């Protein structure tokens, strides 16, 4: 039976420490974690401002952010491809088919999730948190930091969620990364590649890693939500 044999080969690859396989996992983690680390300060700040400030156009931004939530990643990939292509406005940067391009793509994909989750976490925070900080003499930055610390589980949920989305994202990574071995080949694009080669074992092995990661993120998420839901 092909399926059982493939799974056995996949497990062998995983546990024998196949260098190529783990390199792909490493590339994936590096790009996705990097994208989140670079994007989260900006996105969390935007989410916080949207939740706490009143200004014209705020509602439109909130609605657009929520709409971008389900934005197809291939469209992000397409737009970024056109921007970074040699004929594109940013072509002179020579970023197409690099890890940087993939990271930018994942930052764009993660941004609406980070913003929207931070927004709802901050909106869900007790109004007294902000007021207490203010009356105790905290400035804008300290107040923001205090509120975000109080809703840290919500912010963590935003990060886990963003990670879950970008780590398994294939459309944009394939378009702007190009699936170059050892450079821009991450788990989702490698799975797609191994299937076209007719070699399923590595694809299944990476699929297992991806699922274990997704499960881990799920557990982390429900832990964060559970911890955040505890009464004050």
């Amino acid at each position, binding site marked *: 039976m092909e399926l059982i044999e493939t799974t056995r080969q996949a497990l062998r690859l995983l546990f024998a420490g196949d260098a190529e396989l783990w390199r792909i996992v490493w590339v994936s983690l590096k790009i996705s974690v990097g994208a989140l680390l670079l994007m989260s300060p900006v996105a969390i700040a935007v989410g916080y401002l949207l939740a706490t400030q009143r200004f014209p156009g705020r509602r439109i931004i909130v609605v657009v952010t929520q709409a971008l939530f389900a934005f197809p990643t291939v469209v992000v990939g397409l737009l970024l491809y056109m921007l970074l292509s040699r004929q594109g406005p940013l072509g002179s940067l020579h970023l197409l088919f690099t890890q940087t391009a993939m990271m930018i793509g994942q930052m764009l994909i993660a941004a609406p999730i980070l913003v929207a989750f931070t927004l709802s976490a901050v909106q869900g925070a007790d109004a007294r948190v902000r007021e207490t900080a203010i009356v*105790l003499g905290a400035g804008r930055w300290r107040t923001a930091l*205090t509120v975000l610390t109080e809703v840290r589980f919500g912010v963590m949920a935003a990060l886990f969620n963003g990670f879950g989305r970008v780590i398994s994202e294939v459309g944009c990574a394939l378009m702007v990364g190009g699936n170059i071995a050892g450079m821009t080949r991450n788990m989702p694009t490698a799975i797609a590649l191994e299937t076209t080669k007719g070699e399923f074992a590595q694809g299944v092995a990476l699929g297992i890693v991806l699922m274990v990661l997704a499960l881990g993120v799920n557990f982390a998420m429900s832990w964060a939500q559970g911890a955040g839901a*505890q009464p004050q």
Partner: protein
Amino acid sequence: MNMASTVPVALRDGAGDRDAHDRVVVSCHGLKRSIGAQVILDVNRLRLARGRIYLLSGPNGAGKTTLLRVLAGLDRASCAAFQFDGEAIDLAQYPQSVRRRIGFVHHHPLLFSTSLHANIGYGLKAAGVARAEAKRRIADAIEWAGLGGLVDRPSRALSAGEKQRVALARAHALDPVLYLLDEPKANLDERGREMVTSLIGC
């Protein structure tokens, strides 16, 4: 101390150190807060002197909390002339220097989910007080509020009365010239009320 007749809020001069220097802390004329067309607070004249305790009474919705929030700079209000500790203040741009001299405590105070020390030291840190000095003032505040036995407890494990005392200690650490306490004894049991009474002296 004349309140506008339209709003049924009474300000009663309560207990306090009547021999203290009778310096005015807050004085203002024509304090008004409206939401849309509705005026929810209208105070003709208000004068609060240092070293005194004032009790604000009135029915629900009369504007007691709103007045405290306006004075603490949490709610916006217009005011013809507002003076704090002898200094003319534009209420629309409530300055940080005033805020640090006022200790506001919510009806149900909220403690940050950090340690008791960090809660009490929060305002000091925000004010940039040096570490050693802050440490000393935190220790003083803990002693003042009788919280010595609670310092290792997570804030969510404290009772309502204990939280109230931590919140008072947190305000006290900043050594304000004016405390604004919103129903500090509500929802406390007998023992909790006694402890708060002993802290604020009424």
